[in-house]
């Protein structure tokens, strides 16, 4: 299913089921049940066979020892197979990592949670977990796998609590309570689990399908999956969106519409600011330092306390106000959610860029425990960061080392060759980041404007700072088969972030068309069948004299040239050159001769496109005959 078709499906479903969440849920549950039934059918069948043997053994009163062992052995075998297939379906969901907070550590926080719980009439969370992330969530951890019996955790990021006010945190907690009470977490976990299982099964079936010729069970399975999954996913996506709106509405009820809106707005723009100001700088440190900084979390909070650069602030606000809801996101975009609360997005855009709340909720809700919790979560943050940090540091160190060597060995004209420039740019990207690479990429493109990979990188760097230029650069790459997907995806994300819905739609339609076209063209170009369409059109205009000379030199008696019509991209050319040395039907050795000549001609002949050289008695005799019928006779006896 193409993106456009998926969009159309989502729109259609939204129109039909948007106002009927019950029906949507029912359809989704039915779809999920069907999916589960399909997944467990094999296991169930194996279990049934095992049960049959056990029943025969015990109910049938088997007295003979040999028969008993045989039947029970078979039962064991099928139980083992069933267990194996069941294990393949098991996906373990890890509980959230972080600091489990007790009531005596943060009584005010628990009072606030209890207040929200009473307001919404929900059951309580099993635990409250503080994490070093700038995020909040309701976590669902099933104790019995797909059978459920979950543990619900309220996960609150400490940086999050240090930047929002108590009222805003209250709205966030109400939001998460709604997810927990409405079973949203369970359901989304269910969907997540299904997706993982299906993906694993798909990979297995695709591998099998690739290894087998002809009919295999995996082919209909894959076909069914490709039909089923987008439909299931579209419904799940709609439901997730509806869940978010419901949670936002409850958040507004618990705090107030304004506070809920403020919370959403702050989370949205703070994330943008952190991405550009904090994370970017932090990762650059990995080039020089082997371990993450000891004050990482503190720096995260400090970033949001200070006033931002005005130009950047406008950019972040614009993004926050204009972002579109992508069809692959489970959360609606920030403007949509604000509109859902009945707030005017424009007012947020016109207001000054928000700073971290003072007093912050963390100071009030965590009170005296805050320093200890900060310390503990800083350690947790470092522990989580360390593997990624080490990886980045190692890569950067190596790249730096390589750059130094490169500087030594590529002095002189070699230093400005496109290959060296490109390699240097790639290495620098890992060491100094996008800003340092930009001049190199520009230099490279001035030397070799067709360097698509350089253009792609430069385009992606420019999209954030000079969107017009970046967009133009990336749009130029859409015509290249190699870069259409990558550049299209970058542009798509850019249009979603900047709220350019019209452009997004246009690009989406174009990408769908191009991808289909390229796929189809690649398929047509890489195969030849007798039923393909061949033509002699346009061949007369080509200079075929070198070909004819080569044919004569090789001793070919008769030759035809045909062009396969590539329907997807007619400008692409695939030729079929049919040669033969046969002199009448009594010439028995012609096939062997033709085979040898065809092999020689494959190397010596040159045609303006892909081509094959064959003869009427070869394995491609059908193609050869079709080409002879429709093609241009080059040599005639």
């Amino acid at each position: 299913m193409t993106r456009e078709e998926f969009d159309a499906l989502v729109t259609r479903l939204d129109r039909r089921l948007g106002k009927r969440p019950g029906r949507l849920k029912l359809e989704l549950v039915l779809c999920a049940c069907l999916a589960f039934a399909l997944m467990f059918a094999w296991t169930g069948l194996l279990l049934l066979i095992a049960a049959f043997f056990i029943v025969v053994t015990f109910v049938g009163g088997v007295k003979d020892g040999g028969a008993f062992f045989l039947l029970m052995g078979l039962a064991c075998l099928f139980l083992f197979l069933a267990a194996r297939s069941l294990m393949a379906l098991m996906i373990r969901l890890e509980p959230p990592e972080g600091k489990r907070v007790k009531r005596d550590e943060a009584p005010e926080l628990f009072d606030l949670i209890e207040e929200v719980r009473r307001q919404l009439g929900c059951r309580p969370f099993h635990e409250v977990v503080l994490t070093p992330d700038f995020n909040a969530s309701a976590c669902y951890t099933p104790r019995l796998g797909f059978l459920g019996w979950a543990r619900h955790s309220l996960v609150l990021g400490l940086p999050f609590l240090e930047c929002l006010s108590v009222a805003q945190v209250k709205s966030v907690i109400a939001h998460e309570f709604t997810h927990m009470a409405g079973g949203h977490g369970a359901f989304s976990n269910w969907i997540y689990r299904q997706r993982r299982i299906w993906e694993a099964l798909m990979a297995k079936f695709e591998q099998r399908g690739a290894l087998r010729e002809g009919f295999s069970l995996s082919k209909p399975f894959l076909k069914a999956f490709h039909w089923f999954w987008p439909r299931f996913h579209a419904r799940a996506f709609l439901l997730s969106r509806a869940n978010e709106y419901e949670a936002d509405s409850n958040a507004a009820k618990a705090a107030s519409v304004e506070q809920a809106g403020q919370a959403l707005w702050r989370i949205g723009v703070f994330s943008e600011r952190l991405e550009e100001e904090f994370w970017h700088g932090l990762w650059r440190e990995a080039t020089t330092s082997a371990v993450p900084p000891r004050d990482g979390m503190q720096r995260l909070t400090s970033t949001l306390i200070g006033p931002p650069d005005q130009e950047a602030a406008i950019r972040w606000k614009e993004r926050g106000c204009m972002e579109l809801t992508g069809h692959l996101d489970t959360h609606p975009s920030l403007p949509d959610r604000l509109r859902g609360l009945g707030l005017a997005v424009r007012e947020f855009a016109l207001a000054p860029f928000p700073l971290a709340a003072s007093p912050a909720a963390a100071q009030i809700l965590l009170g005296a425990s805050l320093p200890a919790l900060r310390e503990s979560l800083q350690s947790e943050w470092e522990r989580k960061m360390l593997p990624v940090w080490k990886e980045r540091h190692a890569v950067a160190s190596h790249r730096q080392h390589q750059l130094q060597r490169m500087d030594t060995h590529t002095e002189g004209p070699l230093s400005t060759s496109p290959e060296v420039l490109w390699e240097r740019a790639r290495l620098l990207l890992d060491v100094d980041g996008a800003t340092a690479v930009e001049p190199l990429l520009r230099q490279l493109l001035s030397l070799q404007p067709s360097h698509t990979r350089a253009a792609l990188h430069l385009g992606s760097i420019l999209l954030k700072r000079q969107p017009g230029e970046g967009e133009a650069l990336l749009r130029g790459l859409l015509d290249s088969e190699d870069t259409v997907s990558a550049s299209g995806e970058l542009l798509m994300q850019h249009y979603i972030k900047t709220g350019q819905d019209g452009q997004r739609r246009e690009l989406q339609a174009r990408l769908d068309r191009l991808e289909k076209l390229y796929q189809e063209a690649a398929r047509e170009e890489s195969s030849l069948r007798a039923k393909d369409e061949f033509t002699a059109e346009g061949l007369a205009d080509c200079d075929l004299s070198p070909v004819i000379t080569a044919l004569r030199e090789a001793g070919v008696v008769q030759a035809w040239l045909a062009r396969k019509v590539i329907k997807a991209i007619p400008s692409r050319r695939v030729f079929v050159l049919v040669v033969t040395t046969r002199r009448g039907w009594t010439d028995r050795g012609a096939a062997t001769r033709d085979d040898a000549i065809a092999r020689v001609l494959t190397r010596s002949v040159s045609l303006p496109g892909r081509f094959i050289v064959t003869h009427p008695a070869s394995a491609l005799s059908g193609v050869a005959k079709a080409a002879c019928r429709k093609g241009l006779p080059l040599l005639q006896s």
Partner: protein
Amino acid sequence: MPSTVNGVGTTYAGKKNVTTRRTVCPSCGREAMMDSYDTRLFFCFLFIPLIPLKRVRVLDMCPSCHVHRVVHPAEYEAGRQLHVSGAIEEFRKQPTPANAVKVHAAMLAFHENDRALEFRTGADDVLGKDAQSLADIGAQLLETSQADAAGPYFERAHVLRPDLPLARIGVALRRLNEAKLDEAHSLLDFMEKPGSSQLYDLKPLLMLAERYHAAGKKAEALGIYRFLLTELPHLNQNRHIRGVVQQLEKSVGDGSPSLLTKQPFSIRKIFSKDPQVNPPTVRVFAWCGVVVLCGAIIALIWNENQRRHRVLYVINELNGIVEVSLDGGPPVKLAQGGQQTIDFVEGEHRISVTGVAQESHQVSLTTPYMSRWGNDPVWILNVDRAAPVVRYAMVYSANESGKDFVPDVDVFYKEAVSFVPHVDYAFKEPPEQIRIDSNDSKKRIAKQCLTVENSWADAANFLYSANKPEQALELLKWCALSGKGGGKTVSLYVQLATHLKKDEEAWSALEKEVEKTPLQVDLHRLMQERDSSPEQVKKLSALYEGVLQKNPKDAAALYLSGRIAKDPKEAVELFTKAREADPSSPWPSLALAYHAAGRAEWEKAGTLMEHYVKQKPEDEGGRDFFFECNIGRGQVDEAFKSMNARVRSKNIHEAERATLNVILVHALKKDREKAEAAIRKLISHGRSVSDPQYKAPEIVLLNLAYSFGDFDKLLEGAREAGEEYTGFEFAAYCEKHQLTEAIAFVEVEKFHLDPLTSLALTAVADIAGNSGESTKWREKAITLFEESQDKDHAAIAALLKAESLPSLDPVLELSWTAREKALLCVVLANRHPDKRTELLGLARKLNVVPIWPYHLVHGVTGDS
């Protein structure tokens, strides 16, 4: 993938355009040289390709697991040409080094190595200045196992760009092959930086470490291994590397802690297919362990299943219905001869029996844990221990090697609930044949069987024939003392005890039992017959009187008193009373029937015997007498029918007796053909149930000859039959009225002379008109009768001595068999001519069955 089953299926035949490359198998994960070739798929029979199915191109046939891909040769050819020509066209349009590399890659991908050589030589002016492309070409050649061709490209790339990692790797690999390890080490230095595994495949470094190790440069090897273990912790699981590092640390280690971490136990690791994690044998053993574990679990389940599904066989041989319940559960009803099973779980149980027998047993029905795997035990509840349950072992053998097998036999009679540790065939006929899967023709397979014998006597006989005379004696003693099996077991007990020279012990045991009440009729009958002295009679009379004083209606005491009563009328009176006291008791009926038969009152005798036979069907003598009664009362057909069923009895002895009676019926009807047919049937039946060589017994043949009056044949047959049948020889002489031969036979041949023989000789002498011999043998008979000390014999002696016979009453009152009484009447008829008519008339009535001395009597009495 082609496959065959027992040589039938599909296979590839022929190989053309073979190309080879080294790659990793996507199925088994092994790196190997894989072949690609054009071939043809055939249908094969006995591995011989017969029918060509299609042409295929096999791609990358893995030498280990044989998994491969298959394409149509035409499609492959088209794909090859299109792909390569497409790349060439691209290169033609833009002759960049990158495009040259693509063309080269396309050619190598389709195994066109010579064309690739041609191309890269031709494109050297394009490639020659670009280090990266040269290195890429080298890498492509290296991947397709063309290391020699790859080397120069790496060298050139390295000259142009000494910093280029790929070129350094390629050159380093070349140096490794040239054994220039230190040079290779310096080229790979960039890999020995922390975090290098994020960017490079560290395989060349591993190769370098291995080469250092092989070259004996242990310190260098250990240094590289340590770096690799830090960078790639998963190498800790590689058993080969672990072994090498351990060895190196031991020999050149500086004492610093080992980098090898202790591997945590992991079940997944045990079953890992990766040969670097586990030797393949570990995996094989692990799977064997799983199979053994499953087997053990099944064995445990089997054991528990056996424990929970035990069977109690309940056998009722009592004359009536019993109900048996286990632990108060639903009762199981059994009629006489009934046999049922009750399922139970091993443990302590209470078995209750109600009905004709009242029993309760608290028993532990358990088996040892280990025995449940090998044995198939059986528990038997033998109600009132009435059934002779026998366990015997039997063997099956391919030839006659089992003939010498002496069966091991046990009879279960000591306890009501018996346990048999192992039984193959419980209360069912074992099969005639079983299959023995062995080449050893002498192999014997023993099976344990359980059965209920027809009688206790048979059970004892079984024990005796199994060389267990002591156990047989013990069983018979138990039977005799507990009244099982009737008089037969008592007399067998005495016989066996005498045989084993334990008669005194036996008699003393029996005598102790005599005084016990309730009186055992069989035992008392034996005791009365053993010693009929006045002292014994007096002693027994006192005993019976004592019993009758306590219970005047004690049928046994009344009956037994009648047997020793001096006056026949008193005896009859006592028998009648006994019958009235206990109508179910067979003994008074038998006594009264004998009395009636002695008076030729066959109708009455027949009715009484009918009752007796019903009560004591196992008494063969009783059945024969009933047969005689039936003939006496003219119910020949009835008698014939009753015998007909028994002719087919599986007990060949019973069948012989029945056949003999059938012959007698046919003799009466003078139908010799049917009589001979009956013998033929007996032979055929005997061969089917007993012995394939079975012959009709002499007794039957001799009786046939006698009953049809063929005395010459009888004489001849008796002479041939031997000493055991001398009685028939004597009978033949008598019937032929050859007095001299008969007397000579007695006097010269020392034929046992008894009162009946003397009477027979008297009768023959009378017929021959030899009064001297007649008187002599009559007096001899009188002497013998008087010597016997029997009261009836004394009465007969008196009759024979008497000069006159006022009435037939003394004759009628005699307690003697009808046949013998008939002979007596014939003798008396000659002595008392005045009563001759009455006596002969009585003799005619008494002489009904054509067995000795039927014809002698009949010859005198005539038909009317």
